[in-house]
C-alpha cells in the first residue's frame, strides 16, 4: 500500500495541479496541491477498490458465505424425529468424544508419520540427483517422476485398485508364481501401506519439482567455493544444498501434512472394492462426507469439518512456529 501511495500521483492527476501552481500563491498552491493529492488518493482508492471488487465478491460468495453458513449449521442440531434446534457447541463437544472421528484422526496421523518422510525423502533425493546431473537422461527422469501428478487422483487410485486386485493384480500373480501364498494388499493389515504407495506415487514428483526449483535458484558460486575447500559431491549436497533449500522443504512438508490430514480421494475410491477395511469413518474427511450425504446429518458433519479444520490449523501453526528459523518466516 505504501508503495502505491508513493507512486500515487498518476499522469491523469497532473493537469489539475499544474494550473493551480501557475496562478495561486505558494500557500494556496501548497493547499491546493494537498487537495489535489487527496483527490488523487481517493481516486486511487476507488480504483483499487474497483480492481479488488470482482475477487472480493467471489471470495465472499464462494468462501466467506458458505463458511459462515456451515458454521451456523454446525451450531444447530437436527434429529430425525426431534426436529431442528440451536444447540451451541454441543456438536463440537460430541466431535471430540466421538470414537469414529478420533480413530480417523489417529489413522491419518499414523499414516502421515510413515508416509510423509518417505515421500519427501524420495523427492529430495530425486531433486538433488536431477540438479547435479544435467544430461538428457535427467530430463527424462524428471518428466517420468512428475508424470503421476498429471494423472487425476481418482484415476490414479482406480488404476492402483486394479493393480492391487487379488485376481488381476501383478503382485498377486507374482506371489502366486513364487508360491509365497496370497498377499492381500487390500486387507486390513496392508491397506495403509497400499494407500501410502498410491499417495507417494502421485506426489513425489510434484514435491521433487518444488525442491528442484529451489535448488536451481541457489547461487552457483557457493558450489565452487565448496569445491575449492575440498568438498565432494555428497558433502556439497548434504552440507550446502540441503540447508540452503530448507525453506522450500518446510513448505512442501507443510502442504503434505495438510493434505494428509484431509486424506479423502484415495480411500473413497478404494472403498467399494475393500469395504470391509475402509469403513465410512476411515478418515475424518470421509466420515464428514458420509455423515452428510448418507445419513443426512449435515449439522454434525459441519461440526466435524470445522473440527478437522481446527486440527489442521493448529497443526500447521505449531509446525510453522517450530520451524520458523528454517523456513525464514521469523
Amino acid at each position: 500500500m505504501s508503495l502505491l501511495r508513493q507512486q500515487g500521483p498518476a499522469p491523469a492527476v497532473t493537469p489539475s495541479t499544474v494550473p493551480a501552481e501557475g496562478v495561486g500563491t505558494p500557500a494556496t498552491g501548497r493547499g491546493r496541491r494537498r487537495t489535489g493529492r487527496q483527490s488523487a488518493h481517493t481516486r486511487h482508492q476507488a480504483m483499487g477498490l474497483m480492481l479488488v471488487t470482482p475477487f472480493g465478491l467471489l471470495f465472499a460468495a464462494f468462501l466467506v458465505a458458505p463458511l459462515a453458513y456451515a458454521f451456523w449449521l454446525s451450531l444447530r442440531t437436527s434429529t430425525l424425529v426431534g426436529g431442528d434446534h440451536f444447540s451451541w457447541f454441543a456438536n463440537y463437544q460430541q466431535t471430540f468424544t466421538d470414537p469414529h472421528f478420533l480413530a480417523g484422526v489417529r489413522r491419518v496421523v499414523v499414516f502421515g508419520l510413515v508416509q510423509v518422510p518417505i515421500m519427501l525423502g524420495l523427492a529430495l533425493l530425486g531433486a538433488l540427483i536431477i540438479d547435479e546431473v544435467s544430461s538428457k537422461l535427467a530430463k527424462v527422469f524428471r518428466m517420468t517422476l512428475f508424470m503421476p501428478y498429471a494423472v487425476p487422483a481418482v484415476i490414479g487410485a482406480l488404476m492402483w485398485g486394479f493393480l492391487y486386485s487379488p485376481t488381476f493384480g501383478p503382485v498377486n500373480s507374482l506371489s502366486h508364481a513364487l508360491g509365497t501364498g496370497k498377499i492381500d494388499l487390500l486387507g486390513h493389515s496392508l491397506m495403509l501401506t497400499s494407500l501410502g504407495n498410491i499417495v507417494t506415487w502421485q506426489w513425489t514428483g510434484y514435491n521433487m519439482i518444488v525442491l528442484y526449483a529451489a535448488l536451481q535458484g541457489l547461487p552457483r558460486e557457493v558450489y565452487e567455493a565448496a569445491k575449492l575447500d575440498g568438498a565432494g559431491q555428497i558433502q556439497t549436497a548434504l552440507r550446502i544444498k540441503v540447508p540452503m533449500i530448507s525453506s522450500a522443504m518446510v513448505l512442501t512438508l507443510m502442504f503434505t501434512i495438510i493434505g494428509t490430514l484431509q486424506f479423502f480421494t484415495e480411500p473413497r475410491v478404494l472403498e467399494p472394492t475393500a469395504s470391509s477395511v475402509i469403513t465410512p469413518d476411515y478418515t475424518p474427511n470421509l466420515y464428514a462426507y458420509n455423515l452428510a450425504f448418507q445419513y443426512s446429518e449435515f449439522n454434525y458433519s459441519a461440526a466435524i469439518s470445522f473440527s478437522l479444520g481446527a486440527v489442521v490449523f493448529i497443526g500447521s501453526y505449531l509446525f510453522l512456529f517450530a520451524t520458523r528459523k528454517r523456513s525464514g518466516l521469523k
Partner: protein
Amino acid sequence: MSSTRRPTSRSVRRTAVAATSAALAGVLLAACGSGGDSGSGTTGSGPVHIKVWAWYPQFKQVVAEFNKTHKDVQVDWVQAGVGQDEYTKLKTALKAGQGAPDVVMLEFQELPTIQLTKGLLDMGKYGANDDKGNYVDWAWKQASDGDHVYAIPVDGGPMAMMYRADLFKKYNLKVPTTWAEYKEEAAKLHKADPNAYMTDFGSDETAAGWRQGLTWQAGSRPYTYSASKLPDIGVKLNDDNAKKVYEYWGDLVKNKLVDTQSYATTDFYNGLSSGKYATYIAAGWGPGYLSSVAAKTSGKWRVAPLPQWTAGGNAQGDWGGSSFSVTSQTKHPKEATEVARELFGTSQAAWKIGIDQAYLFPLVNPILNGAYFQDKKYDFFGGQQINKVFVPAANGIGTFDWSPFQDFAYNTDTSEVGKALQGQTDWSSVNDNVQDQVTSYASKQGFKVSK
C-alpha cells in the same frame, strides 16, 4: 470435494470448507436439477410433463410406451444414478427444497427413510388405494402405512440359489436343500479344487441387503416401525435367528469355503464368469444381473430354491426390489400419482419389456401369476422355467418392516462384518455390536427405542 489432497495454498481453506461443500453441493445439485426440471411446469394447454428418476437402461422403452398411451401426461426420464447414488442426490435435493423429480424410483428399504423427512407424497389422497388388491401383500405393506400410500411396488427380489450345473456335475455335488448340506457341498468342492468356492460372501455395503435377506429368511424381524406410531420403534438386530446366520457364514469364511470379495467389483464378476464360484445366492432380479456380467457362461446355470434351515421348510427372504414414489416437491400430485401407478401397473406391454429385457420380477398379481411370466423359458439357464422357483419364493415372503435409518444400519453392519472378516472381532459379537450402535443412534435421533 474430489481432490482434497492437493497441496496448494488453498488446501487450508479447503479443509475448512469441507462442510460447506455439503451445503454448496446441495445448491449446485438443486441448480442442476431445476435447470432441467422445466418439465414439471406447464403453461396453459398441452400435456403435463412429469420428471422421473429411474435407473435401469431399458426404462427408455417403458417411458416410450407410457407416452404413446397417454395424452395429458408425458414422462421425462432422467437417469440419476443407481441406488445409493440416486438417493444421495434425492436427499440433497429434498434438503435443499428444490431439484427433486416428480416421481422417483426407490428400493423398499429406503422408503421409510425418505418418508420420515417428509419427502414423499401420500398417494392415498389421489386414489392409489384402488391398486391395493393388485399387488403382493407384503410388498404393498412395505410401500404403504394404512391408507397412506408412499410408493407403488414395481419389482421384487425373492431370493433363490443359482448354481453352475456343469460344475456340480463335474465335482459330483448334490444340489443342497438345507444350509447344512450347502456347507457339506462347499467343503467337498473346495477340497476338489482349492481355487473354487461355493460362493462369495458379500461383505460390502451393496451386499448389506443380501445379508438382511438371509436373516429375513431365518426368521429375524429386526424392526417394528410404522410412521404413524412415531417416535416409537423396535430394534432387535441380535436375535438368535440373526446370530445363527452370521455365525454360519462366519464359519464358512473361517474355513475358507467361501470367497470374501466385495460385490460389484471386477474380481467378483470375474469369479462369476470364470467358474470360481459354483453358486450365486441372489434375488429375482439376479438372473438379469448374472446374464449380463457372466454372459459367456450362458446355458450353464440353473436355479434352485434357497436352502432351508429346517429340512422341508419353506422360509423365504427378499433382497431388493423397487417402487415408484412421488416426491413432496411435485407440482402435479395427481398426474405424478398417475405416472407412478401406470408406468408399469398392469400394462402387458410395459411388463413385457420389464420381464424380457430388464429382468424385473413383477410384484403385480396379474403379471406375476400370469402364464407368460411363469412359463417363460430362459436360455441362460439352459431353457429352465426359472420363475417356477422364484414365484413360489415370492409368495412365501412374510411381512417385514424397514427402519427409517436403513443406511446407517447397513453401514454399521458392513463395518462390523468387515472387522470380523479381518479377524479383529469374533463373528458371534457382530450382531450385538450392530445392535448397540444402531439403538444408540436411534435414541440420539429422538426415537423411543424398545429393544
